[in-house]
């Protein structure tokens, strides 16, 4: 602790500068680790390709041809990139949610977004009901996205209607989880065996649905959200000092919250639409980031996204290695890998400032 205490102002000034530097370096380290994990993810798989082959294809994709290039460019690379994007999106959404709802348990999963997406997916799978004019192959994703997106808006308007505070919003979210889950259970009850199997598999979450167009859409969602996140960073930091305090600083908390929830619905909506429900990342990514860099949102938001991306990317690697020759659904692996990592992080970092 003595290292954190500064006796004189000049020491405090240099201490603050080195704190900022440390946090920047931590972000850079996360980026490096993520790149490593991404490479590892592309290099592993049931067809035993050498690392050299994989790197060769990645470095010079136009020259590559044959089965190696197909496996790397059309199968493994999309999966690996999707893991990074989805992990980042869910954790970023979770981080913003936890801040604007002032609740460490808030995440797209715990407040009904994922359940809503499941309901949308179930409607598509079991009843074939979907948005008109959406091509059949996109029916499931389209439904899941629409429901996820609408659930956040529903949450928002429910709490507005009541004029209720943030606590009520969290309670509404939990109520929505139960309502959506019940509706999904009802659909499962009437579903054919085949549809039921498909639905269960969907709800476990899988990167096997990744394609380049879907990656493009995920990247677009990120590109839309990131500038607004960056603009809101200071205000979100101020909001952590208490809503009334932030209001008296001139921060329009209501507007900030609406903007953040809109971003949350977009990011988590596309994520669950494309890979199914992967719950753990959105909750734990932000907590890991908080332990690493604190809650200055200039560092916290990118760190949360990077932690989530890293966690899901590592889970993707683990999902291929856990049972040889079998791709375990990533939703299962995420929790199995994530929980020990997270507990270790809490134990090692929790005692520090």
């Amino acid at each position, binding site marked *: 602790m003595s290292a*954190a*205490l*500064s*006796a*004189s*102002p000049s020491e*405090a*000034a240099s*201490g*603050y*500068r080195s*704190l900022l530097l440390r946090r920047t370096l931590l972000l850079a380290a996360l980026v490096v680790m993520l790149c490593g994990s991404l490479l590892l993810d592309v290099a592993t798989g049931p067809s035993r390709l050498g690392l050299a082959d994989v790197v060769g294809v990645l470095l010079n994709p136009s020259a590559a041809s044959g089965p190696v290039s197909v496996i790397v460019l059309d199968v493994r690379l999309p999966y690996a990139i999707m893991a990074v994007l989805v992990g980042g999106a869910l954790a970023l959404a979770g981080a913003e949610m936890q801040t604007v709802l*002032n609740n*460490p348990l808030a995440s797209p999963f715990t407040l009904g977004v994922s359940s809503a997406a499941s309901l949308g997916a179930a409607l598509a799978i079991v009843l074939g009901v979907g948005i008109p004019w959406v091509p059949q192959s996109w029916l499931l994703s389209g439904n899941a996205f629409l429901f996820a997106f609408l659930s956040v808006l529903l949450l928002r308007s429910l709490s507005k209607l009541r*004029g209720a505070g943030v606590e009520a919003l969290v309670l509404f979210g939990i109520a929505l989880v139960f309502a959506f889950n019940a509706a999904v259970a009802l659909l499962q009850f009437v579903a054919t065996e085949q549809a039921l199997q498909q639905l269960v598999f969907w709800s476990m979450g899988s990167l096997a649905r990744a394609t380049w167009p879907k990656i493009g859409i995920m990247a677009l969602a990120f590109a839309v959200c990131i500038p607004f996140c960056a603009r809101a960073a*200071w*205000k979100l*930091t*101020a909001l*952590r*000092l*208490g809503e*009334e*305090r*932030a*209001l*008296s*600083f*001139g*921060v*329009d908390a209501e507007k900030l919250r609406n903007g953040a929830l809109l971003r949350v619905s977009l990011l988590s909506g596309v994520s669950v639409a494309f890979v199914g429900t992967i719950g753990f990342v959105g909750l734990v990514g932000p907590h890991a980031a*908080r*332990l690493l860099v*604190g*809650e*200055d949102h200039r560092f916290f938001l990118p760190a949360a996204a990077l932690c989530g991306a890293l966690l899901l990317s590592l889970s993707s690697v683990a999902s291929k290695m856990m049972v040889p020759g079998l791709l375990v659904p990533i939703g299962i692996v995420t929790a199995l890998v994530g929980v020990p990592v997270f507990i270790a992080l809490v134990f090692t970092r929790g005692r520090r*400032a």
Partner: protein
Amino acid sequence: MGVQQRPLAGTWPLGAQATGAGLQLEIAGLTLGYGRRTILREVSLAPLAGGHITALLGPNGAGKSTLLRGLAGLLPARGSVKLNGQEMIGRSLEARARHITYMPQSLPQGVALTVMEALVGALKASPPGAGGMAVSGRQAAEQALALLEQLGIAHLALVGLDRLSGGQRQMAGLAQALVRKPEVLLLDEPTSALDLRYQLQVMRLVQQLTREKGLVTVVVLHDLGLAARFADHIVVLGEGTLRAEGEPERTLTPGLLAEVYGVSGRVERCSLGHLQVMADAPLAG
């Protein structure tokens, strides 16, 4: 790890002019409430002048915090609040935040920010004109540090908010209000969590800043002794209305204690000449 009081420099650490010269806050017919519930009715006060501390007193539920929050613009209000003749009611949060700063009773728990990060965040999140967005990160850090030094808590700059003692937290919260160069400073029970030494330190600091910068300072206090000692003007609320206002000596009387607080008590000068308020017993009924 106490707070060392240091002599305050003559200028705002923030390099601002003493903006408060000749400030005046006028409150007339102010009605405040939450939703349909009215809590304060038709409060009009004598103009509050810059360089003076006004203590807001009254029993629990009298509407003291409500009045402060109303002045800060956090509640829908009817009536008039004028700062130097400019009507504040109906103006945006952002416009008010340029002039007025409000410190709620406490900082939330479980926030992973250091004292310094919180200060820089408070400054950068503020609208331009209240120090905010316009300043660069480096300037914000310099200003924050200068203030911490002035408050004698520069040694806490890199300590997490959650590791601070009650008194240090209060100082950190106060710093978040001060860093924004307010003209009107609204403090909700700044001494509530503090031991005797900190109570005096915080109140002396508030007094010093109020005098030097010519701030209009309004403080909610529960401790009538502190109010008698540090306030220039006393406003007593009870059951949502104004019950008394004026100089401490004329306002704090046994009659007021009986009427507003329901206690029998005495108001006497001690051997040092300070006004002392002593509550003896609750009155029956």
